[in-house]
């Protein structure tokens, strides 16, 4: 092909970029645009795109992470993951974490946002900053501080309860399979509540004041205004907040690793710590390092999360459509 094209003059021009066709002329003209894009694209290709592609490949091998993967095993790891009760337990814990945390956190955040959104309330920016402040600290640090605090509060409460004869022996909250996950959920609610508070505040502030004034004229009370103005107007933003909260909580890792390491007896193991254990610290779960297996579990979870993301896109689009239809009706 290349040879034949050199017999034609345009082909030679093409190769030497002499009197180039429009496409190459455009490329040459925008030389600087490509230079400016190159560093960003290079880093993204190396550390985002390549790992995505390579993780597919790794799932097909038995590999301890040293050297190159050589023992091809096909889809074996996926079947093994699907059959491992510990994986499904971790999966269930991950969803429990999200299903318990999200409704509680969003309810508190919405109530706080409604209170702080009151224009007559003085110092609302100070309150907002206080309730937001845990967000700026790392989950790992928060996990360590909270483990210590849970220990201190625990010993105080335990002594009182034992003196009162309610408990016969002290309860170690983070060392007890019945309470470990619940304690982590509690800390999770506290840690990221501020995001949702600020999101809801932004949503509330985007509701035009005239609608409330119109409702006042119609004689609506505060509850009627909340149900018939605030809730419908918040639906679209609320849906985004809901999905961001779900997606964020499904990826929980730092808090769990730091507070319990997934224990005791895997009672707080979530999918991300399960993957971490298999890939990097196999001794902690009495297994051999199997990066192929860990990658398969990661991909499995990744596909689930992606499914949820797509669901979110569909839901938000649907809500947006309904909202614009409603607006259209009001206008018409």
């Amino acid at each position, binding site marked *: 092909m290349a040879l034949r094209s050199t017999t034609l003059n345009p082909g030679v021009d093409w190769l030497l970029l002499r009197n180039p066709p429009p496409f190459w002329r455009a490329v040459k003209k925008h030389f600087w645009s490509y230079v400016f894009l190159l560093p*960003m694209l290079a*880093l993204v290709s190396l550390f985002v795109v390549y*790992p995505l592609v390579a993780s597919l490949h*790794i799932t097909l091998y038995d590999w301890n992470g040293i050297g190159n993967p050589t023992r091809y095993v096909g889809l074996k790891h996926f079947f093994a993951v699907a059959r491992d009760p510990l994986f499904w337990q971790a999966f269930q814990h991950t969803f429990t974490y999200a299903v318990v945390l999200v409704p509680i956190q969003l309810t508190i955040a919405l109530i706080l946002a409604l209170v702080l959104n009151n224009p007559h309330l003085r110092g609302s920016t100070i309150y907002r*900053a206080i309730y937001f402040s845990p967000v700026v*600290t790392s989950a790992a640090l928060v996990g*360590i501080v909270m483990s210590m605090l849970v220990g201190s509060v625990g010993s105080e409460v335990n002594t009182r309860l034992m003196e009162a004869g309610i408990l016969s022996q002290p309860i170690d909250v983070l060392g007890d399979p019945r309470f470990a996950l619940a304690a982590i959920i509690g800390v999770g609610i506290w840690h990221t509540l501020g995001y949702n508070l600020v999101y809801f505040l932004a949503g509330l502030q985007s509701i035009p004041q005239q609608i409330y004034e119109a409702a006042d004229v119609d004689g609506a009370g505060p509850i009627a205004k909340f149900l018939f103005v605030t809730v419908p107007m918040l639906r679209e933003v609320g849906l985004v*907040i809901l999905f961001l909260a779900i997606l964020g909580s499904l990826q929980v890792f730092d808090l769990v690793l730091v507070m319990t390491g997934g224990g005791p007896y895997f009672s707080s193991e979530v999918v991300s710590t399960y993957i971490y254990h298999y890939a990097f610290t196999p001794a902690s779960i009495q297994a051999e390092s199997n*990066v192929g297996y860990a990658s398969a579990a990661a991909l499995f979870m990744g596909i689930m999360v*992606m499914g949820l993301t797509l669901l979110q896109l569909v839901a938000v689009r649907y809500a947006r459509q309904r909202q614009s239809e409603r607006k259209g009706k009001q206008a018409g």
Partner: protein
Amino acid sequence: MAAHPIALATLRPKLFGRRASGLLVHAVLIGLGFLYMYPFLWILASSFKEPSEFFRSGLSLIPQHLSLDNYVYAWQAGGFSTYFLNTVVVAVATTALVILLTSMAGYVLSKTSFPGKRVILGGMVALMFLPGGYTIIPTFDLVQKLGLLNTLWSIILVQAAGGLIFNTLLFIGFFATIGKEVEEAALVDGANLPQTYWHIMLPMARPMIATVGLFQFMSNWNSFWIPLVFTLGNSSLRTLAVGMYAFVGENSTGWTYVAAGAVMSILPIMTVFFFLQRFFIEAVAGAIKG
């Protein structure tokens, strides 16, 4: 905001009840706010306590005497001087790298139309919706093959890469709001694209640089997962969060040292937050509106 006189007049009959309920609201908000901040206040108090006092006084917020011994121990023997320096280097370098690369890319993607632009934009949007965090293993493998394992570069590059797409999209949005006249004036003056970017566009993008920078700095200061994985083999490269995790493992009884380490890790970012809290919160709020 000054209240409208007519609005005030209609409010006056209710004013007493409003004031009482207002006080109640403030009381609840202050009480809850105190509980909300309690973990931070408690760890700060604990960092000054002696080990025996820590166990005796439990939840008290007032240390009997202000001793800096815990800080001295954590900073010197605990390795926190190294962790602190590593965190500063990683957070500053990653933030600078992200701002530079994403503003450059955002500028040309917003202001020039070149062959392949649609493909790049489409690819970026598609990548936005793929879940991150599940590809650490091949990333680790790649870093190893590039010979970057056991260097701070591994953390800087991997973390920066993770923030590139989202922030480039932010810069595209920002530059789209700047009118064409500005650029055309620069071109008339004979400036080429890099000159226009550096002398005109970048200074105009200061608000967006502040937003991106603040968020990058915060998330890099706090990140745990990536520094943890890339420093498994070399403790001298640990960042504060990873160092704390290891410190707890090694000092399971030295809680007052851990408290001092925690304060050193939290205080800098908290200070930045309380000085710039308006910008932080506006940036978060902006994310949901966009």
